[in-house]
């Protein structure tokens, strides 16, 4: 690049800009352009950022999940499931309700350690493939999903089809002789508890890091 032009001086006086001042490096025109564009940027950010925060807000808001009574102790057994309807989102009618399958903890079936939250096992009907509703077929002792053929055994572990992890569960606790259902949590294939994830997000191996838990919904700390 032998014929490259000499680099221009940074001083407007040397560049022979009309009306240049001694020692001036930025022309008034350039300064006006920068200031004008910065003012426009600030004005746009003043409405774009609040609007974005407004739309994204629900991601970081903690969802309220009150304990809901679902029946007396003697309505449930440790051999098969009893369906109960709970309200996940209040005020939107049927769209906010969901079915939960409940049975008593059975040491012959359930391998996970027993604590105050699993005297009753409450299984979510959300299929862990893509979220269709599963139903419990008593004759087969299986949860079966109508959409894409997901099959789960009696404790909710995947026995066939595309689901990526066992069925989600709900915390249960005894309030006197009433069984109450609390927040949802997810489990990996060893039925270890995790903060609730959406369907289609595996929890074995690196799954729990690839699909992080969200501030809106967490498991009960220490469980």
């Amino acid at each position, binding site marked *: 690049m032998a014929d490259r032009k000499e680099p221009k001086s940074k001083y407007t006086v040397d560049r022979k800009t009309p009306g240049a001042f001694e020692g001036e490096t930025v022309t008034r025109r350039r300064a006006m352009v920068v200031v004008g564009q910065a003012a426009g940027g600030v004005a746009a950010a003043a409405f774009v950022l609040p609007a974005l925060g407004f739309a994204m807000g629900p991601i970081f808001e903690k969802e309220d999940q009150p304990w809901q009574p679902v029946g007396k102790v003697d309505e449930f057994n440790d051999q098969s499931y009893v369906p109960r309807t709970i309200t996940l989102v209040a005020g939107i009618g049927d*769209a906010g309700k969901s079915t939960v399958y409940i049975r008593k903890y059975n040491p012959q079936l359930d391998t996970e350690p027993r604590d105050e939250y699993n005297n009753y096992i409450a299984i979510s009907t959300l299929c862990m493939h*893509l979220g269709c509703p599963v139903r419990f077929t008593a004759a087969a002792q299986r949860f079966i999903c109508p959409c894409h053929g997901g099959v789960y055994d009696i404790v909710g572990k995947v026995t066939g089809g595309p689901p990526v992890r066992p069925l989600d569960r709900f915390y249960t606790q005894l309030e006197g002789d009433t069984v109450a259902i609390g927040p949802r949590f997810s489990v990996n294939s060893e039925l270890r508890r995790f903060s609730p994830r959406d369907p289609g997000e595996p929890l074995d191996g690196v799954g729990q890091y690839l699909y992080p838990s969200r501030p809106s919904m967490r498991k009960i700390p220490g469980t």
Partner: protein
Amino acid sequence: MAKIKLPAPPSNPLSSPKRPGKTYGPTGALGHAEEAGVSAVDWIDERTSLSGGLRWAMFRKVPKGTNWFYTLGSATMFAFLSQAVTGVFLAMYYDPSATRAYESIQYINNDVFLGEFVHGMHRWGSSVMVILIFLHMGRTFFFGAYKYPRELNWVIGVALLVMTMTMSFSGYLLPFDQRSYWATIVGVNINGTGPLVGPYLSEFLRAGPYFGATTLSRFYAIHMLMVPGAIAALMGFHLYLVAKLGTTAPPWIKAKGPEELREEKVTVDA
């Protein structure tokens, strides 16, 4: 005081040179109506100079071999316009609340005059638009019309395709029947399977961890305000580039230079 020179007003077609055997000046009601129309158009054009731009955009030279396949793009645009118009009128009766949406659709279908027809236009028209956009894309691909200098228009077209799919997805929820509800649950969960950002994306779409009170209105806002505005803007830019760059000949038309250049080449070879 400096004299301001106004541009000469455009020539009035009615004052063009007279031809023998024809009567001039407005005659009868029809003539007066024609004159009124012409002068109204002239009034606008004198103040905007829009006619030049319109002539530039609409009366272009097209290559030899241009055929019916070249109309698929405009067909997609008219499908979009049909969706826009029917959508605006459906919005007059539709109520995007989780408890009222299904009833309002039933009301549109069963009670509103032509309601089922306009809803049907919108519902079936959406499939028509998706089919047309794919055919248009196929035409562009197989005719090689995505090559230099039209790559940017291909990229814009892909963005328009993605936004059309977004429209199909967000519109599917709005009737709020069983099919809509579960299809949306599945669709949102598919978005959630993307690593790292997926969980946040699905929460953004649902406005929370569960399908909630504002999910439907969120989809409605995306469906009728955000995406259509972006589609209209990008469609305008897409059409500007078509007018600026021109269309390509079909691949079976052989390119021929001007006569004199071909002769010159022959003499050089010899």
